[in-house]
């Protein structure tokens, strides 16, 4: 198979780890000899957050396992853009079965390795939000409950992008999708629906749960590293903006992911055995409007007249997250700021 060497700009930016920092602090992505588990030449859209997330996560996991890893992939964009017969962008052993069963396939891979006495090879299961939150949830919950030795990674782009941007159980309130159009008195996705899969994962009491985004590679890679140090069921939820579905500029993917955290809409936290251990404080709190306005899926909130009521409700969601996870950190007396 023809392979392309990694270009200088792919390892030099701040976003992927800054080659100017101390060697120990550099990211896996900044290494020109990184695994490149998902190599270039695939058919993802420009600025695809999932393509970035998949490579960041899997390269970090490959580094943690010294390349002894098998990847299971649920149906979705990632399968569609990375494999078109007879080509494949995968440089790891990779299997795709169907949409809803990735976690169970992962269980099977882990069981076969265990039965063969292979304690070195590790299993990483990857899925979009549809394959994790919705159709894949039964198998995922079963995998969690049995504490099977798999890391399950959900690349959350908050809708069914592969089929043309339809609503999923991870679609945020007010967001326009092809099945929650921006029409009627309550345009976009209804308020009060959807579920937090990270918190559902925490409720299963599994050894490790974390959230991350593609905006902070250091944080993302550190969480993958911690997950791979542990055995049993582990869950990593990665927010991956989708320029096509969110209506954002391809070059804004990282900025939008960062804004999701800085508004409090996407809390970054780590949990173990049912307990939330740590949430990343917001360094520069911004109002939700700064996150919503650049996205066409929320454009109907900024029409004439603007839907200040809906924007306020979304701000309320962010404020609740900030309180619940302590996202403003603590002051010197230990109280919340």
């Amino acid at each position, binding site marked *: 198979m023809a392979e392309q060497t990694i270009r200088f700009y792919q390892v030099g930016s701040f976003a992927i780890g800054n080659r100017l920092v101390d060697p120990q602090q550099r990211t896996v992505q900044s290494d020109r000899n990184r695994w490149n588990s998902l190599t270039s030449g695939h058919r993802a859209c420009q600025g695809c957050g999932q393509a970035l997330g998949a490579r960041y996560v899997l390269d970090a996991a490959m580094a943690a396992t010294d390349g002894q890893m098998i990847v299971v992939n649920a149906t979705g964009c990632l399968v569609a853009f990375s494999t078109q017969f007879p080509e494949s962008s995968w440089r*790891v052993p*990779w299997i795709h079965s169907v949409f809803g069963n990735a976690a*169970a396939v992962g269980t*099977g891979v882990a*069981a*076969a390795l265990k039965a063969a006495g292979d304690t070195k090879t590790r299993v990483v299961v990857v899925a979009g939000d549809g394959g994790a939150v919705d159709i894949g949830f039964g198998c995922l919950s079963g995998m969690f409950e049995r504490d099977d030795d798999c890391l399950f990674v959900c690349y959350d782009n908050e809708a069914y992008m592969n089929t043309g941007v339809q609503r999923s159980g991870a679609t945020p309130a007010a967001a326009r999708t092809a099945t929650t159009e921006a029409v009627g008195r309550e345009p976009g996705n209804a308020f009060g629906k959807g579920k937090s899969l990270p918190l559902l994962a925490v409720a299963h009491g599994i050894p490790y749960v974390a959230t991350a985004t593609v905006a902070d590679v250091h944080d993302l890679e550190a969480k993958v590293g911690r997950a791979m140090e542990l055995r049993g069921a582990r869950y990593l939820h990665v927010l991956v903006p989708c320029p096509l579905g969110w209506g954002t500029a391809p070059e804004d993917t990282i900025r939008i992911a960062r804004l999701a955290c800085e508004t409090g809409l996407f809390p970054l936290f780590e949990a173990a055995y049912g307990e939330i251990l740590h949430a990343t404080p917001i360094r520069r709190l911004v109002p939700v409007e700064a996150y919503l306005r650049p996205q066409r899926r929320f454009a109907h909130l900024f029409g004439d007249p603007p839907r200040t009521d809906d924007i306020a409700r979304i701000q309320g969601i962010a404020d609740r997250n900030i309180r619940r996870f302590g996202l403003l950190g603590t002051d010197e007396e230990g109280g919340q700021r």
Partner: protein
Amino acid sequence: MLRQIEGSRAVAETVALCRPRVVCAYPISPQTHIIEGVGTLVKSGRLKPCEFINVESEFAAMSVLIGASATGARTYTATSSQGLLYMTEAVFNAAGLGLPIVMTVANRAVGAPVNSWNDHSDAMALRDAGWIQLFAETNQHAVDLHIQAFRLAEELSLPVMVCMDGFTLTHAVERVEIPTQEQVDRFLPPFEPRLILDPADPISIGGVVGPGAYAEARYLAQARHLGALARIPELVDEFGRVVGRQSGGLVSSYRCEDAETIVVALGSIVGTTKDVVDQMREEGTKIGVVHLTTFRPFPEAALAEALEGAHRVVVIEKALAAGSRGILGADVDALVTNRGTRTLTVVAGLGGRAITEGSLRRVFGEAIRGELGAVSFLDLDREAVDRELARMAADASTPPSVARVFGDLRAPTARIV
């Protein structure tokens, strides 16, 4: 060793002799005794190394085996009825990926109306899933077919479904000889996967295939199925040499020489039919029965040969294909119709309704006298059905009511002659 043993227990012990590395199942009657048996054999350490995994659904069970098989493990599960339908998407997927998974289907009716007794609705619903489907006539047959199934699956890279009648076989205690470990090991070599997820040699399994190659991929599945038709009889011979018993194969004929009437059936009903054939032969009727051990791939040539010379073929169909002339019936009819042989489909034994010798004698007699329609229903309470149909015709707003039909039925036990 010849033992008096329950069918499920015999299958469980046989599966263990085949040394699966990963067994995964979700409980459903009447499959339960099989997986309980395998589970106990794993937990007690008699079957090792083996991972026995209790999952949250049949869909997960098949999916676990897809992952395990692609990682090089010999894999096994068992299910029935609703369970088989619930795992359908993964059943097709396992065949498409060419994974040699072996699954017992303890055949059971499919709801609604919910019914946990035997018929073949479940296996028939998935006849086009790409799996080889073998039907056991007896529990001895079931034991032998499971051993052959692993060998066949792994040689052809195709999953194999071994169908055995729920309760009628799974819960029947009868004499069965389970081969020794040494015999099974001699017949069934360790699994050497053709396709394996291995970090040392990374491959992509299950990628997208567009219009440019999909038809070719599907054709290869067809070719492997046709290959099975050639391989199955050879494996029967080899099995016979190792175990000392002829068992399995494509079709088996009983007293079909010079037969004018040949009955075709799948599964345990063939035993009762053989008794009826014996009785009718004694009375001078030229009748025989053919058991289709291999239903998919459909053994056209072997079956056509077995039916050579018959004036009429009576197909016993333990499933209802609503709106059509029957599944097995249509398959058989396509084989014999252009040589002037009549096919008469008898839908029988639905939802565990007993198929008695008396009823079979009566229906075979009607077939011979030319009194039987192309499709008929054995022992159907015609009066109750007609009353309900009349009621529905009189008042179109009344939904069909199973409860009301039941109210009209006499006690089923009173009907067994």
